[in-house]
């Protein structure tokens, strides 16, 4: 323990006393923020490209740039979510609803300030967990088997169906649609092509990034431009100062979202986006002002931004401790670390005892970098707001086309983006939310494989899906969430809850 603290101290000193590393950190974070601002350029893409560009640098400097750009991309993604209602990266989709609502009210600066402070606190909270848990983790992640992953995926989609909008039925339909679209293409077990209509291009499936750009970017462009009235443009009169006063007021949300973010980060295959959505859900379930959610709730925005950022260090924990990256960007980050000759995994603490602490120090530096940019350098980026829609939207569409092409260089992805966008435009008008669709798309593969793998392991028996301890927990929460929307059940629950809570309340009141 003491050794650990000494190593950590050394790592911090080495990093903070070297001007080169400070400059590199700032450069990485700035690149990340710029990439994050542009819809369609994901953290995965950013890290992958920077890996190739920095491969000649010494290991620690290169990895520092990558870590800072990783944190920067997710932070930058909230910018376009708030100002344009288009998430810059998948992880910022949860920030759209409330952040953009605030911006529409003329409080864009406040929203950005909240995002900055939420991001700072979230990453910082995650860093603390990274330092504390990495050396001792190996066991928890291993207790997740096929059955647990199955429920995790189902749980995520069910929950997101109830999150946004006021019609869970439509949410679940969109969730099922997203899960279905994820099944298109070659499945991973027997390499069998599903729903490809014999076309080889479909075999690669509908990739997440084009679908995301279509559902949020292109659909938004169509909605804005179809509106014959040139709307008044967003103005940002208020300051973009981070709001630490609000952090203090919503400390429960910050802590809860931080913990949820780290926990979702721990689970392999569950990305930053789930971290954001789950903390958003938890905030909505516990807040005093649920009506405000989706209409500019500070609680909601804070939860989403804290949740996605704290999942970054969360992803690094299993990546370092087990060599199992938790998300696509951390998978690329791990590949880059391996390229630099350091193998994450159970042997890391033996072979490179200082590396885990170096990572902690690097992530801390990244946190400080985004705070600096959040304070001083973001405003110049915001001149985007002054531009008229009829000028801005065609340019955004241009970027959407390039963005959906940029990851895999396939024209098919552009066509997929267009198709999803037109579909999303009509569905959105009829009250269907895109968030459950996207989450379904993200989790579809996990759901399919863990269901079939779980059945193969038990010769087709469904029993373990309901008897393993973690499964019981997930299953009961999922089923309970759905039943809550059956009126009879809902009324019964409320009766029971009232019967339990009101004596407690009066007890507390008397004491108070």
């Amino acid at each position, binding site marked *: 323990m003491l050794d650990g603290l000494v190593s950590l101290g050394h790592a911090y000193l080495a990093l903070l006393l070297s001007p080169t590393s400070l400059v590199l950190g700032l450069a990485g974070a700035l690149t990340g923020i710029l990439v994050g601002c542009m819809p369609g350029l994901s953290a*995965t893409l950013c890290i*992958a490209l920077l*890996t*190739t560009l920095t*491969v*000649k640098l010494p290991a620690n400097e290169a990895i520092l740039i990558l870590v800072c750009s990783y944190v920067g991309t997710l932070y930058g993604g909230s910018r376009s979510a708030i100002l344009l209602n288009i998430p810059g990266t998948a992880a910022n989709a949860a920030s759209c609803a409330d952040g953009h609502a605030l911006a529409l009210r003329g409080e864009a600066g406040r929203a950005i300030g909240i995002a900055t402070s939420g991001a700072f606190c979230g990453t910082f909270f995650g860093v603390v967990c990274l330092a504390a848990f990495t050396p001792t983790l190996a066991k928890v992640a*291993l*207790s997740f*088997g*096929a059955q647990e992953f199955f429920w995790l995926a189902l749980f995520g989609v069910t929950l997101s169906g109830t999150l946004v909008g006021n019609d869970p039925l439509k949410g679940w339909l969109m969730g099922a649609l997203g899960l279905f679209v994820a099944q298109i*293409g*070659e499945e*991973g*077990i*027997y*390499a069998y*092509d599903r729903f490809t209509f014999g076309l*080889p*291009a479909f*075999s*690669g*499936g509908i990739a997440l990034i084009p679908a995301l750009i279509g559902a949020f970017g292109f659909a938004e462009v169509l909605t804005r431009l179809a509106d014959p009235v040139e709307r008044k443009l967003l103005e940002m009169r208020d300051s973009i100062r981070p709001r630490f006063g609000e952090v203090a007021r919503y400390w429960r949300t910050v802590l809860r979202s931080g913990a949820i973010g780290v926990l979702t980060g721990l689970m*392999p*295959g569950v990305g930053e986006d789930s971290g954001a959505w789950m903390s958003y859900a938890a905030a909505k379930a516990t807040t005093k002002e649920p009506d405000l959610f989706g209409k500019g709730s500070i609680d909601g925005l804070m939860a989403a931004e804290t949740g996605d950022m704290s999942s970054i260090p969360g992803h690094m924990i299993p990546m370092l401790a*087990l*060599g*199992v*990256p938790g998300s*696509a960007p951390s*998978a*690329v980050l*791990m*590949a880059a670390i*391996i*390229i630099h*000759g350091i*193998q994450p*995994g*159970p*042997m890391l603490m*033996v072979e490179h005892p200082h590396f885990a602490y170096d990572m902690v120090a690097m992530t801390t530096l990244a946190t400080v970098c985004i705070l600096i940019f959040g304070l001083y350098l973001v405003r110049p980026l915001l001149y985007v707001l002054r531009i008229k829609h009829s000028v801005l939207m065609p340019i955004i569409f241009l970027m959407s086309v390039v963005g959906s092409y940029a*990851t*895999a*260089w*396939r024209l098919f992805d552009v066509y997929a983006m267009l198709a999803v966008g037109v579909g999303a435009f009509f569905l959105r008008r009829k009250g269907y939310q895109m968030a459950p669709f996207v989450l379904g798309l993200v989790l579809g*593969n996990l759901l399919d*494989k863990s269901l079939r*793998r779980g059945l*193969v*392991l038990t010769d087709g028996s469904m029993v373990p899906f309901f008897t393993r301890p973690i499964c019981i927990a997930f299953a009961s929460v999922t089923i309970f969430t759905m039943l809550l929307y059956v009126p009879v059940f809902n009324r019964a629950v409320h009766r029971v809850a009232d019967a339990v809570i009101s004596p407690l309340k009066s007890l507390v009141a008397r004491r108070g």
Partner: protein
Amino acid sequence: MKQLGALKLIFGSALAAAVAVPLPSIAADWKPNRPINLIVPWAAGGSTDQITRLTAAQLEPLLGQTIVIVNQGGASGALGTRSALEAPKDGYTWTAGAAQDLGVYETLGLLKTRITDWHVFTNVANIQVLSVSANSPYKTVKELLDAMKAKPGQISVGTAGVTSTGHNAMEAIAKATGVKYRHVPYDGGTPAVLSVVAGETDVSTQSAVEQVDMIRGKRLRPLAVVGDQPLEIEGYGTIPPLSSIIPGFTAPAIYFGIFIPKGVPDEVVQTLEKIWAKNIVKNEALKKYAVTRGALFSPLYGEQAQKAVFPAIQVNAWLMFDSNKAKVSPDTVGIPRP
């Protein structure tokens, strides 16, 4: 000029076949004037991606040009390979991966191409290792095989799917010994290996590269190399070959490398062959990767590479055919039964 080119091609390949002879210096060096695209037909972060990125980083200073890696997954790697095949034959689009995958696309009906349509530049060869969890009751290969015979279809083997090298290795063992097992597919090599560590499955036959950390960390117990050569792993010791228990057992090594479609300008191929012969054979970074990751460092090119990769293609193609996955018989596309 054209004749000269053809002549050079003949000379080039003839000379490349003779290993010790240095390459002719008549080839003008290729100086790429814009970034080269290297399509990795698998997802970012996987084992193909890792070794390809490392190799690209070694090539960049030698070519004086950036190599941009693009991940195009799908159709067991055939989608990305197709883009490389359909790109202009100017030498600026390459692909990478395991030669045994590329060699069976035609058999599987995924893509009309053969390994002989490509210039192959290998970097490492992977070897499969038969392992069990460190707290498993099976201490030797014999104990494991006896248990598989006693409980047919009960002992589970985690692999990266039916097209993976891990599954091929287990199929080879099953064919040689007649045992039956339960096949549990995972999303990739690392999750499959992890499932053995976690106790969800009993046995792993993934490549040493994917198991090496768990072996060194004493969480996996390697029983044998799936092949006829022992493997030394730094920090662990030597793993005996399976042929010491099952006499006559062989399995070909799985070669990874960079592939360039035939039809590109001669100077591209000759420059790369020169780089392979002069620089890559003594490249320290690749050697270090191989030694620490439990792979075999094997930089080959030209005819030699074609000869080295072919056995694995044969085995793979016929395995696919025998398990009804193939669309056409490997015989008809120039792959005789091994």
